[in-house]
């Protein structure tokens, strides 16, 4: 995954891309989940606050709720992975983001997010 992303302790990431943010789950989360079989994403235009559940990712064993790392309004969802959730497990597949959002999040919202290297330390 892109190592300039910021991560949550609950294993989501957010990556700034121009005027939008890409949100997904970390490579560590994917590895822990194992075979991913189902992804439920919100509708475009849905709005969420920071730490709110916005998606569900299911492995064979369990359903996991995914939390917003920052507040924002959904502008795009990754239809490809909704239709083929197993792409998340495919190391060769690049586009593993879940949603893209527009956000007015201030510094306070970013304060508890971790650099990828700090996140890696945290989970070890």
């Amino acid at each position: 995954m892109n190592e300039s992303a910021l991560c949550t302790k609950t294993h989501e990431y957010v990556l700034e891309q121009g005027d939008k943010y890409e949100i997904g789950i970390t490579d560590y989360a994917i590895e822990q989940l194992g075979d991913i079989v189902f992804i439920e994403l919100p509708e475009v235009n849905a709005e969420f606050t920071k730490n709110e559940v916005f998606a569900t990712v299911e492995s064979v064993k369990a359903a996991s709720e995914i939390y917003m790392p920052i507040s924002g309004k959904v502008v795009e969802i990754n239809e490809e992975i909704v239709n083929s959730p197993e792409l998340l497990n495919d190391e060769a597949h690049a586009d593993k983001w879940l949603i893209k959002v527009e956000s007015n999040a201030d510094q306070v919202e970013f304060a508890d997010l971790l650099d990828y290297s700090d996140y890696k330390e945290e989970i070890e």
Partner: protein
Amino acid sequence: MTKQTFIHDRHVELGAKMVDFAGWHMPVQYTTIFEEHHTVRNSVGIFDVSHMGEIIVKGPDALKFLNKVVPQDISKLVDTKAVYCQLPNYNGGLIDDLIIYKLEDNKYLIVANASRIDEDINWLSRNKFGYNVEIIDESHNYSMIAIQGPKACEYVQAQGISSLPRFFSIEKGSIFGIELWISRTGYTGEDGVELIMKNEYAVKVWDKLLETGTAYGLKPIGLGARDTLRLEAALHLYGNDLDENTTPIEAGLKWSVPADKIDDYNGKSVIMNQIKNGVKKKLIGLKMIDRGIARHGYEVFYNNEKIGVVTSGSPSPTRGDNIALAYIKNLDNLTVGSTIQVSIREKLYNAEIVKKPFVDKRNK
């Protein structure tokens, strides 16, 4: 303190993801659940199931005693035969489900769920009064390895297993020069055997299996695939699909409860009454119609009324759809083919009642 099987370190060396299960540190998967599942359906897989309990019941009253604690008629069990049965409480609810093997006259082996060994021993001991019988928990002395899949029997025979028992039978035998019990049983819906051996031999057998099994595509399989395999075969998991408030009749296990058994046994009046007059709840198989996975604890609806709860649910790697077992109210109009709903994250999703098992390999 989490317990470890004698093969534990091998799982770690193989890179398995380990989890706590029923107080044991067990491998949930070595590669992926899907891959391991297909290995067992298409060739052969081995499972470390040493966490399972082994209880010996012996003595002059062993038969009479067992007939008092299970609905099956143990007097019909001939030497080396095994039978699937349950341990009901006085209300017909289930303390555990078991396999009982007749080793010889007056000596039986019970294989029990890891999570229930203590309860089983307590219950058997409570019922022992007046019977000349010994109940010995041998769980800590024995290891168990299951070998399952369409190529399992061919494979073990090629390894010179001394004798392959008939289905649901057990024989004393040997493989790789090691003396052990060979049981033609399993928990996957596939043919295969389960080897029960003294702990000291477990690692050697495990290593030899992995070493000699390559040509057959033999792989180690974790508890994750064990669960999807048993669910496809609609085999009950104690704690999910069976508990102390559920009778064998409600659980769809009437086939394991003889109607003509003469001896009285715990829970018999409740169980016989249900056979005669019907049950209020019943276990059904579900296949999701809408996109969504029904899981343990999710509620089941019909006409916007709650009628039950899912007890086991997961994707079916063999079928490619999402399946579940659920207890629902025993309504006459709900049968195979009916559409009901499962509540997933507060939304209702359509599901169809289907025949069990979900995958039937034995009749093919």
